[in-house]
Structures are given as structure tokens and as C-alpha cells.
């Protein structure tokens, strides 16, 4: 497979004279779990709708599996999608809903596949119950089963954790990871649950005010973004430690919180000097950790910059 699973080049789109997407470009490799981040109204769902062929791009080009889904029924059969509403009919049973989509996608041996998926999402004992009697979390699990019923190569999840309690959010997150591994799917995860994205995604793009503000692997973003920092656990209060290291030329910031000290460094190689300075000042150090910034910090920085510049 020479092409990327998803390719977006110079995508722009406006509604009623308002720019929603402006020159958006990114790619998603095969087998990746890609996180598409952005605040409400940033244009995430519009991007997904354009990729799925539901909306036309204003400018630019989009491809999923190298094809334009708007004009290609065969290509759409290789793609799955879960919108927030799950795409289920409340009056039909769990198995009935899956059987319907199995018919639309031409799934072979649908009965066997439906049984397999209902067991996987822990709904085998509710297979004949109307979906209207299900909890939100159960509907979401069934929606995920529906989205991957036809063994898609790429699956789009639009806010899969939205409206779920923390337990159900975790269940959905684990299910997505399990399915992506087991079914070898590329996952396009549209979310503003940063913790969820940081846990399961390999690559992310941050969208704000219609533009891509960051696009990289989670590891690179959290490591490279901003300045290096270390967190030190001291055997005692760290209040005075900031007075000691605050004036060192390679320390740009120092925060003490109880017996924890967090220092931002101008030079990533200065950690041994910092430790030596503290030991020399009589502090006893129990642990030294290189701290990377959380995705949340990076996200807020990019979104804040976008909003400040807008």
C-alpha cells in the first residue's frame, strides 16, 4: 500500500461566508491511531464530513485510501464511521441493527460476524433487545460494533466518548485500541478528550480557528514542544531550593510544590549540573525525572495562540 490511509491537502471550506477550514493539510499512515483535536466549532466534524464525501471541499483535495469517497461506492465499503448518534434505530434489536448494516455493506456470513462482534462488545446477552432500552454506553459499544462490522480499513470515530461517564469512556477507549490492534484498522479519532488522545493515539493534529496548529507524533509533540524540564523529589520541603537554583543561568523557571521541585532548563544537558548544585546546597534528592509536557498543555498553548491571534 503505497498511499497514506488519509490525505488532506490544502483543504478549505466556508459556510455562509465564514471560513471553517483554511488550508488544512495532514496525512494519516496505515495502521495509525490518529487524533484530530480542536475546540468545539474548530472544524473537526466538517473535516470528517468532507473526508467521508458528505460535504464538498471548497478548495484542496482529500483522499481516503487514495480515493474520493464522494464518488466511489466501492471505496466507501472499505471505510467505517461512528458519529455521536451511533447510527442505530432504537426500535430494532442489537442484532437487527447490525444485520441491516451487514446487508448494506454486503458482509459475508453476517450471522457469524454479528455474533462475534456482540460477544466482543459484551452485548451477546442483549442481542434481541430493542436498542432503545440500552444505556448510552451500551449504545456506543454497539455503534462501534456497527462501524467495524464490515472490517473497514479506515474507521472514523467522531467524539466516541462524548456524553459517557468516566467508566464508559475508559471502556470505549480500551475497545478502540483493542479493535485497531485486532482488526488492523487505521483509526481517525475526532475528539477533545485530550487524556484519551494522549493515551491511545500515535499521531495528532491540533485544529484551531480552522487551521492546523500542530501535526506530529504524540511523542515528538510532548518531548520537543517547549523547553526541557526536570522534576526532582526532595527528602524535605523544596521552598528554599528555588532560591538556590533560581539564579543559575541554565534554569529559566522553578516551581516548588511540597517536596517536589520542577525546573525548566535552557539547556537539556544541564540536569547533572542542577543536581550537583542542589546537593552542594545540602538538599537530599530521592528521584530525578525528565518531565515532558502533557498534550493538554500543548493543546491549550496552540488553541490559546490561535484565539489570541484571531
Amino acid at each position, binding site marked *: 500500500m503505497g498511499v497514506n490511509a488519509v490525505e488532506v491537502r490544502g483543504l478549505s471550506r466556508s459556510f455562509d461566508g465564514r471560513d471553517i477550514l483554511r488550508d488544512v493539510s495532514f496525512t494519516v499512515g496505515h495502521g495509525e491511531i490518529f487524533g484530530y483535536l480542536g475546540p468545539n466549532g474548530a472544524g473537526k466534524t466538517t473535516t470528517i464530513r468532507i473526508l467521508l464525501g458528505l460535504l464538498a471541499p471548497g478548495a484542496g483535495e482529500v483522499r481516503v485510501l487514495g480515493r474520493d469517497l464522494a464518488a466511489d461506492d466501492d471505496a466507501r465499503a472499505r471505510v467505517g464511521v461512528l458519529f455521536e*448518534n451511533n447510527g442505530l434505530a432504537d426500535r430494532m434489536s442489537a442484532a437487527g441493527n447490525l444485520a441491516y448494516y451487514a446487508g*448494506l455493506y454486503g458482509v459475508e456470513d453476517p450471522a457469524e460476524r454479528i455474533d462475534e462482534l456482540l460477544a466482543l462488545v459484551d452485548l451477546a446477552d442483549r442481542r434481541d433487545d430493542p436498542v432503545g432500552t440500552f444505556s448510552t454506553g451500551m449504545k456506543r459499544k454497539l455503534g462501534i460494533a456497527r462501524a467495524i462490522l464490515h472490517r473497514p480499513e479506515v474507521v472514523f470515530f467522531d467524539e466516541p466518548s462524548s456524553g459517557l461517564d468516566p467508566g464508559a469512556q475508559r471502556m470505549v477507549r480500551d475497545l478502540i485500541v483493542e479493535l485497531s490492534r485486532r482488526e488492523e484498522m487505521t483509526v481517525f479519532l475526532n475528539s477533545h478528550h485530550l487524556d484519551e488522545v494522549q493515551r491511545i493515539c500515535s499521531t495528532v493534529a491540533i485544529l484551531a480557528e480552522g487551521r492546523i496548529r500542530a501535526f506530529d507524533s504524540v511523542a515528538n509533540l510532548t518531548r520537543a514542544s517547549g523547553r526541557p524540564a526536570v522534576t526532582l523529589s526532595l527528602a524535605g520541603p523544596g521552598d528554599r531550593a528555588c532560591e538556590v537554583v533560581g539564579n543559575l543561568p541554565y534554569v529559566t523557571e522553578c516551581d516548588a510544590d511540597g517536596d517536589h521541585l520542577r525546573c525548566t532548563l535552557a539547556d537539556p544537558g544541564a540536569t547533572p549540573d542542577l543536581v550537583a548544585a542542589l546537593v552542594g546546597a545540602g538538599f537530599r534528592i530521592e528521584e530525578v525525572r525528565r518531565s515532558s509536557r502533557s498534550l493538554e498543555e500543548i493543546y491549550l498553548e496552540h488553541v490559546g495562540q490561535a484565539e489570541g491571534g484571531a
Partner: protein
Amino acid sequence: MSTFAVIARREIRLALRNRSALITAFIFSIWFPVMSALGIAAGAEGDAAAVTAGITTITLPVAVFLGYLFCADAFLREKRDGTIETLLCAPVSLQRLWEGKAAGVTVPAYVMMLLSAAVSVAAISGLTGVSIAAEPLLILHFVAVVPIWIGASAGLIGAAQLALGMRENQILGFVFIFGFIFLIVLFQQIVPAESGISAATEAVLAAVGLALLALARFIAGKVTKERIVRTIP
């Protein structure tokens, strides 16, 4: 099984599980023919041909209304709930989706219409003492003309419901119903029915029904996915 059959079968199943629509359809299928029977019985004065003509006259408004009633579930609910978006991502053309849904709506509406016709016959026979013969034109009316009109009604309303926003849909629901009924009355006035069901009337009604069905198909072919998605509430 073809995707058309898959979609149509699902709509039939959903209609059979839609208790509120079934109850409404059932009440209307009883109430409307009984009320109409009183008028027909008074006007026909025991003339069997006039009674038969009266029955065929009332069946089409019932058919149109039932098509509209079941459409609300097949098209409008799908849009209101947003589940249409998932369907539009399936490897099925929008035209095929519309055809399957319109066909799926037509079946339960037709069954209810037959119930309504049976009530009409029983009520009018009971009131006038006239026994209604199953003459070929009457059979043709129920086997061909009525399903064509239900299909046309469901197809037109369904296409409009896909294309329009929620507020416009509320207004147009009424416009469609009254428009259809007006057309039926108009054509039955124009075509000389004399004192009974006539081949000319049935031919004109069938032709108009087919024209409306073709119009519905044409309109459905013009609706785009973008239009549908952008009018989801």
C-alpha cells in the same frame, strides 16, 4: 439480497414497530371511511355504480395520508436523529436509499389502505343495503392505482423531507397533503366519471400517479448529500 430490498425490508419492520404511527393509521383508516360512508350513502341513493365511484374517490386521500404518515418515520425521524448521516456513508447511492425507503413506506401504508377500503365497503353496504361487486375496474383501482399514489406520495414527501430543514418540513407536510387531495378532486371533476367508476378515470388517475412518481424520482435525484447533512438539526 439487493440493497434496495435490505432498505425496504428494514423500513417495513420499523413501521410495524412504530406503535404511535400504527395507532394513528388505524384510527384514520376506520374514522375517515366511516365518516365518508355517511355522505356517500346519502348521495348514492342506492345506486351501486355511484357507491363504487364514491369508494374509489375516498381511497386516494386515505392512501396519500397514510403515505405521509409512515414517511415521517422513514425519512424525517432519520434526519432528526442524525442517523441519516451514517446511512449516507454506506456504499449505497442516495437514489437507491430513497427508493428503498419509499418502497418500505408504501407497503404498510397499502396494507392500512386495504383495511380502510374494507371498512368503507362494510359501512356503505350496511347503510345503503347495496352489495358492491368486485368488478375488474375496482380491482384494478386497488391493485394498481392506489399503490402508485401511495408510492408517489411517499416518494415526494420523502424527497422533500430529505432536502428541507425541520421548519420547512412542518409547513410542507400540510402543503403536500392538501395539494394531493386537491389534485385528486380536480382530476375526478375533469374526467367524466358519469355515474360510476370508469376506465377513463382510472387511466387518468394512474397516469397522474405515475407522473408524480417520476417527479418524485427526479427530485430525489437532485437532492445532494451536502443538502441533507446541512439541514440536519
